[in-house]
């Protein structure tokens, strides 16, 4: 019997040479006359170990990483393909690696385990059970299950998913749509990408369930153009699902229909904002719409539309398979279930950490992350993307919970965490936040369009100015941030002040100021 060897085909692995590793393994095996089956699985999310090669043994899958193509010859010499663990890169049983063993993989149960494009793998590992259950339920029962699971929008805004679905279900109209926001543009986030590249069928299943629940027969997945691998995997998986009766007319002979299409973005960050995304899908500039009307009532092409993040939709199959209570049992307070934390930046062990809400930031940074990659003290962490606050060490004992973060004037958002070591210049990062807003603003509202440019100029004056001028400019900056916070149409202008003011309040030294934390907004 041939030995099964897994080499991830996820872009995080490809970016560090996984294809070269796969080629080297195949060549070395051929040269030695060995019978191996090479499987291109997804990523486990242990990204510092990529390329993480796994060998199937009777005891389980043994890992080796990070493997470079140059290591392959020595790996074969050590007998790794026979299950030997003598090579210095050997990690033992992958499922016992503490980083992974201590997680609660619900949404990401299959990531890295299966071949992402194998429908048989997907079904063997619990796939499509949720949809089969949903097809036996009334639409209102499906919506009720999602509501009582406590699932909140994982894109960052944390709005209860079931309530959104219920609005669409109750909205009049024969034509409704399911839109998946896969415009994952925030630095420090890659969980959506991992779903799409490592377990695309779960997103397809989640969208199909959403369609059946609210009475929509068509769905769109809007993926950013920076994710070509995700687009390719989704398109291949959609074709497979369709040819196997999981999509299209009369799916699974249920009498229900659902069609799905991938649409590619075009490099505009603002299209991650849901109304800008809808405009973009309609073929227009990605300009933010004023709300109301809510997209749930008047969304794509003016029709009732469910628009959810990838992770929200990818969690639905599990809820319909194992029940709302199963998911509800994880978490704390009003934050139910698990959060896929994405640990990134200057961190030794960066990757995907799916855990029930409630773990502290410090545990994530040190127990999982192992401290900074550079070995220098960590100075600040930005949680929730480019529009999230910077948190100083005094706030790292905060539990990961939407409400606990809101109480600190911070956002948990999608759970993306970017770590900066002591060399970070927080005034420069504050300037970058304003600059990014200026580059990516859609231009519809003045506080965002003009405010961001004035913000860059003001921070430049603070950084370059004399101490006396600095204080004046800080007053101006706070005033400007107040206008952006309260006067912007969407989160782009409305939340850019979070990184700016948190940097200013917690790290005044970097702005050439004495401590001004008493002015905390």
């Amino acid at each position, binding site marked *: 019997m041939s030995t099964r060897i897994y080499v991830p085909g996820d*872009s*995080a692995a*490809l*970016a*560090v040479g996984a294809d070269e590793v796969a080629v080297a393994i195949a060549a070395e095996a051929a040269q030695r006359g060995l019978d191996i089956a090479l499987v291109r699985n997804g990523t486990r999310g242990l*990204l*510092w170990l*990529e390329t993480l090669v796994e060998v199937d043994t009777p005891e389980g899958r043994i890992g080796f990483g990070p493997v470079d193509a140059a290591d392959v010859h020595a790996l074969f010499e050590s007998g790794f393909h026979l299950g030997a663990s003598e090579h210095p890169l050997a990690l033992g049983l992958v499922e016992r690696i503490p980083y992974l063993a201590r997680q609660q993989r619900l949404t990401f149960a299959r990531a890295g385990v299966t071949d992402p494009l194998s429908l048989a793998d997907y079904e063997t590992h619990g796939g499509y059970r949720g949809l089969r259950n949903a097809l036996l339920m009334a639409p209102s029962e499906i919506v009720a299950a999602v509501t009582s699971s406590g699932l909140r929008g994982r894109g960052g805004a944390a709005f209860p998913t079931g309530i959104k679905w219920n609005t669409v279900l109750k909205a009049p109209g024969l034509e409704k749509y399911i839109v998946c926001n896969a415009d*994952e*543009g*925030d*630095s*420090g*986030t*890659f969980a959506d*990408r991992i779903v799409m590249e490592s377990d695309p069928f779960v997103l397809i299943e989640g969208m199909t369930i959403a369609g059946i629940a609210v009475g929509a027969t068509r769905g769109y997945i809007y993926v950013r*153009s*920076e*994710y*070509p*691998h995700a687009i390719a995997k989704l398109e291949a998986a959609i074709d497979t699902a369709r040819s196997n009766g999981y999509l299209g007319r009369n799916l699974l002979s249920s009498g229900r229909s659902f069609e799905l299409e991938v*649409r*590619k*973005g*075009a*490099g*505009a*960050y603002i299209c991650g904002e849901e109304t800008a995304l809808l405009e*973009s*899908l*309609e*073929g*227009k*500039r*990605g300009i933010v719409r004023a709300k109301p009307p809510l997209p749930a009532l008047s969304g794509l*092409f003016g029709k009732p539309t469910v628009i959810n993040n990838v992770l929200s939709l990818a969690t639905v199959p599990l809820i319909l398979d194992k029940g709302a209570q199963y998911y509800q049992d994880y978490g704390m307070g009003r934050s139910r279930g698990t959060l896929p934390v*994405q*640990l*990134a*930046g*200057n*961190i030794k062990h*960066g*990757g995907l950490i799916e855990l029930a809400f409630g773990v502290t930031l410090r545990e994530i940074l040190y127990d999982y992350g192992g401290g900074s*990659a550079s070995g220098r003290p960590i100075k600040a962490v*930005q949680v929730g993307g*480019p529009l999230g606050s910077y948190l100083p060490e005094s706030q790292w004992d905060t539990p990961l919970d939407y409400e606990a973060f809101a109480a600190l004037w911070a956002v948990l958002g999608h759970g*993306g965490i*970017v*770590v*900066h*070591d002591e060399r*970070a210049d927080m005034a420069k*990062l504050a300037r*970058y936040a304003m600059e*990014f807003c200026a*580059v*990516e603003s*859609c231009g519809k509202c003045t506080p965002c369009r003009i405010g961001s440019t004035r913000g860059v100029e003001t921070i430049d004056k603070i950084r370059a100015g004399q101490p006396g001028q600095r204080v004046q400019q800080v007053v101006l900056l706070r005033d400007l941030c107040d206008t952006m916070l309260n006067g912007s149409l969407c989160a782009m202008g409305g939340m850019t002040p979070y990184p700016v003011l948190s940097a200013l309040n917690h790290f005044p030294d970097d702005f050439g100021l004495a401590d001004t934390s008493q002015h905390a907004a």
Partner: protein
Amino acid sequence: MNAPPASAPAAASVPAEAALAAAILARYTNRQDQLLPALHALQDGIGYIPPGEVATIAQHFNLSRAEVHGVLTFYHDFLDTPPARCVVKVCRAEACQSMGADQLLEHARQALGCGLHERSADGSFGLEPVYCLGQCASAPALTIGDAVYARVTPARFDALVAQAAKPLTEAA
């Protein structure tokens, strides 16, 4: 009804590009939501969106030239001039910054001899910024052509660029 007013200067259409554009547009129905997919296909086929074809695109979708121009200029991806033969995009977002993306960009400037939105002296390489490639746990990251690379040190940058330059010089 969407013919350009006589006063508006329209860019000249190049016959070879016009033929290619017409063939590509024929694959898309004239619904506005097909505009972005069509623009991507045009750019994939021609390398950029020729300004001389904007009127044709507008006519195909029954839009005004201004509407098409608005879409083209809103999205960073769409180019109005042919790109360099090999485009290097360096991520400038926070996670990559925390791992030395600014220094990597400076190295790229020196190595290619050009700044952002510019080209190397021989025109073969273009240098562009990008804001997040989703490789934030393996920063810093960049793309060269269609390929994405993470944990890029200056030495790896030089090796990757040398590798990418090979087919370019062979073709020349």
